[in-house]
């Protein structure tokens, strides 16, 4: 869903820029496409880590078939596209199960104003709010998730908008700024038949904003 004409910046020759010349439409299309590409590619890397297996986040999944929220990011500023939908998040998850058994993992995104409980709603909806993977291996690996991106529910602005106090300018008066934020959550559950001592191990997570194809 790139919104530029050329999916990249196009160069203009400075010597041709006479300050009093009119701007023809060809020039205009180039400049405007560059602006849109700059916006398209301004998505940020919200989460990115990969730790040694021994230092993975480790949670025992006591109850079978019950999703446990095991990791949450802070409410991080996010971007919305021109059509009102959020920039999708490109996601990877590196994980394993702790003892014999099978563990299901899920990664989802919720509005920054919501609590972790909202993650259960995202899990109930599934894609594109949440994507899942399963592991019965004790060896850590980047899992094959059911999708490669997640994004906020349509119309999710009410759950994302945060208002904070900031300064109008350096040394200036206090003022409020509104922006949108989201939390990335990781859930895990052990499948029925797995031991009550089965644990979920998470050793890597990547979530980055992407304008989408």
């Amino acid at each position, binding site marked *: 869903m790139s919104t530029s004409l050329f999916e990249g910046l196009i160069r203009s020759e400075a010597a041709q820029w006479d300050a009093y010349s009119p701007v023809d439409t060809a020039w205009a299309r180039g400049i405007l496409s560059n602006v849109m590409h700059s916006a398209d590619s301004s998505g940020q890397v919200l989460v*990115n880590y990969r730790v040694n297996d021994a230092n993975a986040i480790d949670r025992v999944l006591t109850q079978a078939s019950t999703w446990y929220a095991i990791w949450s990011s802070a409410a991080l500023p996010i971007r919305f596209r021109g059509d009102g939908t959020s920039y999708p998040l490109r996601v990877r998850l590196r994980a394993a199960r702790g003892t014999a058994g099978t563990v299901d993992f899920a990664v989802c995104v919720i509005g920054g104003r919501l609590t972790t409980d909202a993650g259960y709603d995202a899990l109930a909806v599934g894609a594109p709010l949440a994507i899942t993977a399963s592991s019965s291996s004790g060896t850590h690996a980047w899992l094959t998730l059911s999708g490669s991106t997640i994004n906020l529910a349509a119309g999710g602005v009410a759950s994302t908008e945060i208002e904070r106090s900031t300064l109008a300018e*350096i040394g200036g008066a206090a003022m409020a700024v509104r922006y949108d934020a989201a939390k990335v959550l990781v859930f895990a559950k052990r499948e029925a038949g797995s031991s009550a001592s089965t644990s979920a191990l998470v050793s890597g997570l990547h979530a980055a904003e992407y304008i989408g194809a």
Partner: protein
Amino acid sequence: MPLSRVPQFREDLAFASIVAGAPVASTDWQRAAAVQNWVAGRGRQVIPTFCPDVPDLEAPSNTYRFALYVLPSYPTIDLVAMVSRSDVVSVLPGVVQTPSPVALSASPRSSYGTTAIQVQLDVAVDVRDEEIHSIAVYEIPRARIEQTASAGGIDTSALGAGQPITIASVDALRDAVADDTFGARVLAAHAVPWSKDGGSTSSTEYATASTSATYAAVVGGSGVPVLARKKRTTDTTRTVKARCYGWVTGATTGQFRVTSSSQGSSSAVSFTNTTPAWSSEITDLLVDCEDLSTATGLQSATWDELTVESRRSAGAGNVYVAGWIVYE
């Protein structure tokens, strides 16, 4: 200083209506200017969230200090650090920890600029051993930004209806887009405590230690996903930068190296400082950039992953690395 409003939401343009032989509507110019203000003022994730590659931090009464290298956007005023943690005794299994803000002396800033801020983040562990689940730093978006070339703010009123749109009118917009530091990504960053007494003395407890002349991965540096912004239309790669936070003992030279799996690109920097400090900059690391025509942005089915390593290249002492960052 005149200020431009930073929209909360970006807009799109209908290129189908911007055609040869017809004038470009002032509303299109103004919309594009608003998008540029949005790009410049929305704030960036200056430290992507990471889980420190350490076992539990031990109590009692230790103040663990993490070094973070923050590259602010020019117009940024406020930075927010968020940390989630839990003690390892009383927290029920499966209970997620909510990140909380940590005060940063660097925020609010006292002047604009892109000069790096060397943040020292302290985490006090008083009673019980604790594990750190996440650390992140982001910029609070601006409500308005300055109409200067550095800040990237565009005066939308200069592009209003009834005015001739000359090159002088749109030059600020053209220049702002050519400066692609606006919206630049920090691709990955990592830190572990380099001190456990609040910075008075360095600690080697969590940093990666090396006496070997062979490169070995440092903390959090074994296969980290990376995908940079695309600049030009035909680009498939982007040159990015990196630094490490390290030190050596004695008359030793340490080396820090970052390698890209997809490009096979590798670049190293040496350091000889005996107290912890940020290294000089690697400037020529080649990594994959986004392909905006694919569903994931990947250039191929295989992710580009970074391997971050250190070694002793001269002398007989130890080489320590307690943090690193890779950025555009």
